[in-house]
């Protein structure tokens, strides 16, 4: 479904020179599974997901989504995915209904089908009470629901969620998580990045722990438990990260 091989991404920063955001990251996510990308802030999760959503281009390495290459077949890839991140906001001067409708049309969905699909999504996420409210007047939770609705309106086989529960209160976060689980049950392949281990434990079929742009461990949660002889995912995560030497991965001379 999603195959990421040896993905590398460099940035140039005025102060620190070349920064390695991703350093040979590889992982694979399957249909009907939730794949968790776990890592502290600045680990490279967002960069990886931005590359998958074709918003960024890798420095080297390849990634395919449903068989399409994210660099040379970016347009097809965008048809396959729904992308929600902290940076994909909703329009202030558009109502919930208009926003979802707009993206539905951009995906080329016909009028009747779009309407039916939107009604069902608005029902499922209980969005009808604010369907005519402008983005500027919505609460964080409402906005997040609109974002998810916008991302799945075209029924994509792959949904990418980057820190989707950040800033949500317990109730809304719970709704979100249920919605994600439901999407998986509909056969979607989901990539879910988070730094909250409870969420990952509850949701993810497989996880990869990423730090400093490198994948340190991956497998199912049970596999990781067995391998590192710890029950709690948070402990495993903490041990893994603190056992790594504090390398500064910034090698200006390497290409």
């Amino acid at each position, binding site marked *: 479904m999603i195959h990421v091989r040896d993905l590398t991404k460099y940035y*140039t*920063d*005025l*102060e620190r*020179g*070349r920064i390695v955001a991703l350093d040979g990251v590889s992982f694979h996510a399957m249909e009907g599974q939730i794949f968790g990308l776990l890592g502290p802030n600045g680990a490279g999760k967002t960069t990886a997901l*931005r590359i998958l*959503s*074709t*918003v*960024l*281009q890798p420095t080297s390495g390849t990634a395919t989504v449903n068989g399409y*290459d994210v*660099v*040379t*077949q*970016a*347009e097809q890839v*965008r*048809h396959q*995915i729904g*992308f929600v*991140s*902290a*940076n*994909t*906001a*909703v*329009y*202030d*001067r*558009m109502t919930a209904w208009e926003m979802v409708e*707009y*993206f539905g*049309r*951009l*995906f*080329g969905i016909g009028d009747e089908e779009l309407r039916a699909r939107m009604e069902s999504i608005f029902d499922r996420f209980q969005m009808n009470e604010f369907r005519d409210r402008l983005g500027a007047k919505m609460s964080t939770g409402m906005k997040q629901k609109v*974002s998810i609705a*916008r991302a799945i309106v075209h029924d994509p086989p792959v949904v990418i969620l980057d820190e989707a529960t950040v800033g949500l209160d317990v109730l809304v976060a719970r709704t979100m998580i249920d919605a994600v689980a439901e999407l998986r049950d509909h056969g979607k392949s989901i990539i879910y990045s988070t730094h909250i281990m409870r969420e990952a434990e509850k949701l993810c079929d497989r996880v990869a722990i990423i730090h400093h742009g490198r994948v340190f461990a991956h497998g199912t949660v049970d596999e990781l438990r067995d391998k590192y002889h710890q029950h709690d995912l948070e402990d495993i995560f903490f041990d893994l990260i603190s056992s790594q030497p504090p390398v500064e991965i910034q090698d*200006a001379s390497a290409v």
Partner: protein
Amino acid sequence: MSWPNVRLIFLREMRDQLRDRRTLFMIAVLPILFYPLLGVSFFQIAQFLKKHESRVLIVGEESVKEIPGLFEGETFSSNLTEQVVRVKFRELESLPFFRKYRDEFVSPDGPRPDVLTEFKNQLLMVMEEEDCHAVLYYPPGVAQKFTNYAVELAERRDAGQSAPPLPEPKIVSPMRTDAESMTAGLLKHVVKKHDRATKDSAAEQRELDELVREADPIVYRGEGSERRINTSLWSKILPFVLMIWAVTGAFYPAVDLCAGEKERGTLETLLSSPARRSEIVMGKLFTVMMFSIATAMLNLTVMFGTGAIVLSQIEDLAKVANVGPPPLAAFAWSLLLIVPVSVLVSAVCLALAALAKSTKEGQHYLAPVMLVALPLTLLPMAPQVELNFAFSLVPISGIVLVMRSLLEGTFFELWPYAIIVAVVTFFCCWWSIRWAVEQFNSESVLFREGERWTLGTWLRHLARDRQDTPSAAQALLCGLVILIVSFFLSVFLAKSFEELLARGTFADLFKSAFISIVVGVALPALLFSIMLTRSPRRTLQLGPPTKLLTIPVAALLALAAIPLSRLLLEGLQVVLPMTEATAQLEQLAKLFDSAPNVLAALGVIALMPAVFEELAFRGFILSGFRHTGHKWRAIALSSIFFALAHSIVYQEINALLLGLILGYLAIQTGSIWPCMTFHFVFNASQYLLFTNQLPLRHYVEEVRGEPALYVPILLASVALGALLFFYLQRLPYRRTREEDLVEAIQRENAHQLA
């Protein structure tokens, strides 16, 4: 590109902008309110000016009151002004100062200057006493002259003399307050109008129209010329207003649609949707254009309407300032010109706005846009500037000049230039749109983070993060530095250059060429290569070519190019005759006659440019521009800089085309050496041919009395050139990372279409 998507994005952006009160206010409400308010306040001021009573003290002999057509009771004749003016009289004889110096005043030479100055002070004091704003002083005998003007005119004509000048009354005013200055201005107007009326009536009475016209052609402008002045005035004001509002109307939506979206975080949402970058840009561009056109149109219309109404209401006052209501034709043509101007401005604004990471930063870009756009609008207002080949190449200025020629009725003579203007405008629009699309494809632009910038960190960054070859921005910088350095060197050398052409020696020529080519062109490029790149060798393409055969190929190609280049030069001299440039070329050629020997001449004319210009233009600059990802764009850009570095127009055009060939050679062969070979062979054989040191005149022209070989040789050169290009085109060449990427994406798109 999918047009339904463009339409969808356009409609959304339009709705979004229309829901934004700030944009609406700036773009629609402000102009609708502004001009009428301006008009109303103008009107109020004019009313006030009319109601405001100007008091004028007339000083002169008793007979002044009898001057025909000047006074009506206690005010000026209503033909002369509609302003409220109260006139008081004071007889000259009542002034003690006048009585004291009467003899001087009535003498034909008039009073001495110091007496006159003192008299003016006296007049001002009397003016204060009488509570007036200005004095209109008629020297003794003047009134009489006015009364007798018609008679005198007839006598003069009979005697075969020219018309007599009218005597001038003097306006004396302290001009301390607005009321005083205004009264003085009013008096000037009244005196002028009265002059004209006197001449008119004299001419009518004595049928001496001809004579009077001859006497004072300036005052005697026909009605038509006044209209022309007014038209030309408005044809300068309207483009200016149009430009300001086209930019303002485009700028705010552009910033909101790009920087604003980045700031609010909705841009990434849109980028991850299936809409292509080009569709997003086009959708946004149409929105920006819509606002730009609407704003400019709204402003012009409201301004035109208000101007027409207000100026017709205060005609009297407006005449003082020589302004009439805007002519309808000027307005109509301005409306037509809005579209190309707006497209151009919108695309530029959009690309710039994409560069900004926040609305605040975006707003800082408005001033530079205006700083570039306004001079281009103002340039055509300079005297002597008219629609010709050179000015039709300047974007925006060309459009304004076309409009002016339409208004002034010279368009039918100048229409071929309008085609050039259209082509230039189209190219600029296309290029700006491409630029905007690229901004949306550039990660570093879309995801620019706020960084703390200090000179130190930036310099360290330049040294630490330099790449093997320069970036496109560094190439651009290098090109600009070369142009600037060359400009100052040419100012420095100019005097000696003229001297050089006039009576220089070969040594002077060598010195001048050395300074301009080595210091002006090569030195910046070499310094940049050493400081800004990791591999000067790769940057300057110093390695051997992939195939050694390409060196003789380059030499042959140069030989094939000569007849064509010569043909081009001759064609140019016909199409673009410039006597000065031709003379300079010839003078320069003569200088080489003073060379001690052929080798020395070739060293200066062929070897030096071949080595040093190539290092700069095909070395550093081309290498840098190749990081834009498009081979031909890099070639074109490097060749534009190559052309601009030359000083004579014909050389520039020649260099532009040769630059294309040289750039292509550099990329296909992967080395600077074939370029240097081409450049050397080209320059050297040009020199040898035109100094007749090679018996090969057939090569460039038909030689009288000998077999007609020129045309066959020309055709053979074209064939040879084509063959060599075919060979070069098949060479595998090393692509930059960006070029690889662009090609991969293009292949994929082509594959999809298939």
